[in-house]
């Protein structure tokens, strides 16, 4: 990993920014899902960050929640039980899948954060549900503002939406850089950027990373690959596996991960809570919500197809966490319905990444040009 990315990664790993915030008296809230509307937390002067654990073995967590649940959930639980999140003022999750609901409940039960809120997601996008969702977000804002004793203000909400939109635009620029003929960002570097952006205020990330696209634009880019791939999956954040993918002759040119494109795609266009509600329920990389006439898996497939087309991906690498309920239900449809080769990697955590090398190399051999 090149130098600037290392700095970003250390922000995630060492929690350097978080320490700064806490030391300066800012209140930090952990989120368990990319669908938590962070703009609301941000508008109240608090710092939203995404909760991650980074443990190979999750023995403490396994004594509280089943060991077959996804790596993400077990790691959040493990980190929580070890006290890694003691600095948090509260946690927020969303009803986007069973794991996230019950992780929230278990976390509340065992770790007892000072504040907690579960955002109730409608799974449909019709007028009644959009209206409900806007009111649900308002309810969340009320609860949080009363906990923080900070008055909610619409103008501040739209300012926060602006900050997040700028961040999303910047991520879009990074996305274009990795999609070039000679990609200018490696997969692990891209993920390092994403993870750091999830561990700090967006305005701080933007001011740190703003000049990166220009810097990278001057770079020649990488041509040491034989296959351009789209990464599909959910709450994935293992850099070693990403490196292995690229070492095997693939270049990651796009993704739909909850920790990456599933998080930053889509801007807030409208005003107030309704605008926020429309952005979050309209996230087509998100797996559960869809319009009244379509299934969410169809919307996800459309999102993937669009990414593949825009970024000239030749194949898909599907990261299937064995405990992920979303992957478990949707993977077969991606394999069946997308008409480019798909490599499905069954991920069993803790990962012993080397076991995947041969399969990746064989995949590149079979489908890579040159």
């Amino acid at each position: 990993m090149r130098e600037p990315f290392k700095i970003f990664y250390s922000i995630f790993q060492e929690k350097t920014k978080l320490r700064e915030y806490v030391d300066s008296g800012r209140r930090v809230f952990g989120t368990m899902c990319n669908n938590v509307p962070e703009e609301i937390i941000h508008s109240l002067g608090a710092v939203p960050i995404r909760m991650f654990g980074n443990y190979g073995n999750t023995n403490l967590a396994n004594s509280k929640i089943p060991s077959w649940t996804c790596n993400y959930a077990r790691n959040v639980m493990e980190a929580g039980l070890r006290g890694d999140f003691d600095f948090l003022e509260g946690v927020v999750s969303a009803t986007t899948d069973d794991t996230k609901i019950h992780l929230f409940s278990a976390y509340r039960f065992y770790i007892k954060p000072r504040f907690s809120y579960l955002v109730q997601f409608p799974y449909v996008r019709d007028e009644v549900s959009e209206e409900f969702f806007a009111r649900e977000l308002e309810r969340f804002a009320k609860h949080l503002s009363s906990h923080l004793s900070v008055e909610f203000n619409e103008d501040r909400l739209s300012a926060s939406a602006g900050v997040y939109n700028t961040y999303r635009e910047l991520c879009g620029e990074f996305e274009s850089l990795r999609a070039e003929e000679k990609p200018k960002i490696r997969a692990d570097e891209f993920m390092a950027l994403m993870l750091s952006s999830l561990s700090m205020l967006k305005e701080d990330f933007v001011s740190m990373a703003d000049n990166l696209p220009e810097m990278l634009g001057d770079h020649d880019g990488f041509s040491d690959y034989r296959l351009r791939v789209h990464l599909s999956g959910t709450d994935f954040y293992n850099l070693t596996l990403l490196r292995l993918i690229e070492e095997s002759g693939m270049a990651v040119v796009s993704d739909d991960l909850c920790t990456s494109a599933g998080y930053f795609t889509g801007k807030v266009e409208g005003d107030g809570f309704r605008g926020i509600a429309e952005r979050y329920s309209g996230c087509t990389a998100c797996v559960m919500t869809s319009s009244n006439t379509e299934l969410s898996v169809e919307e996800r497939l459309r999102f993937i197809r669009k990414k593949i087309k825009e970024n000239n991906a030749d194949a898909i690498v599907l990261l299937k966490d064995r405990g992920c309920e979303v992957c478990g239900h949707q993977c077969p449809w991606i394999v069946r319905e997308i008409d480019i080769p798909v490599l499905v990697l069954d991920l069993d955590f803790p990962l012993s990444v080397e076991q995947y090398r041969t399969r990746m190399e064989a995949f590149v051999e079979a489908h890579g040009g040159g």
Partner: protein
Amino acid sequence: MENNWNPLGYKNLYRELFKKHLNRQNELLKNNRPVGWFFSFHPSELIYIFDVVSAFPEQYSAYCAARGSSVDLIDTSISSGYGHFLCDYFKTTIGMIEAPEKATPPLMPKPDFIISSRALCVAHHEMAEVFARYYGIPKYTVNYPYWTTDSLKNPDELTKEAEWADELYVEYTVERLRGLVDFMAEVAGEADEEKFREVFRKSEKTSELLIKILNLMMSKPTPGSQREISDLVFIAFFVLGSDYALEFCENAYEVIRERVKKGEGVSEEKHRLLTFGIVPWHSLKIYQYCESMGANFPVNLYVNASVHKADSSNPYMSMVRRSMHFTNSSYEMLDGVVKTARKADIDGALLLENTGCRITSMIIRPLAERLREDLGVQSLILEAPQCDPRVMPMERAKTQIDAFLESLA
């Protein structure tokens, strides 16, 4: 082991009930009425109001598990690429769709529409999507809230009547339910209002009887076996609102009342256990084994979760109330469960971790903790997926049960 473990004598009543249910289904199929697939906690009354054929993947999968075909069906689903750690009901149903020749007949009829909901698990919604895509059929979704301490106060563990529920959530759910009624009218034709009231009146009476039966189960000695009681979920979930459900409950209530009056128990009662977790349909003998050793089950929280007090004067609220069970509430809301356990005077708990089901499996340890902390009651946790007997071989389960009962003695 005695095969006819049927102390309450409900077996004949169930037989009669299933017969009537199947006759109704066949009659409607003959008349080309639309077929809907539904999930537990769906307002089953609508099935009778709109005269549609109903099929429940959960119920069908349980049937396959009891008949021994679920293992093959689960394997079919996994070899098609679906996840291993998903709900057994999903995997079994996928097996039926992809390899019908391996499934136990009669298979579920092909659906014309599907109702997805989240009154229990997102898995219902996730699987409804997959099934809808297989068949290319319309789907309607009702999204109930997941209740937390800031949205629901003091729900009764059995009736689900609560002191207070957040208006925003209730209103939205009611709106979706009204939409569901409109959707049903579109697929099945308008229903008349009197019928609507009539079905809910039946549902109300039936629900009251179910609650009474479950209350009587807490008598000393425990009057019935879980082999008979656990099937009550079929009534509470799937056929509530039908004539035959009401008829069953009237008879079943009389039987258990008589038995309690006479002080007759399942066996010579040495222990009173609470149980929770979806019943392992392939190994119902597990209850019988415990009961034959004097460890009876006055409380099955899974069965308790399935019932609610229906209210014909307020049918929509009644439909929302179905979702106010402890498995759809955050884990600090276990007070109602502890109260029930205290009332039943239990001295141990047998908790079943249903692999692949995040709902039952994740709440089990907090439940065991509350029972231990509040009542000093120990729990035995067994990993037991509801349709896959390979994970919990009976012999191993028996050894663990023996050791547990010994520790209670």
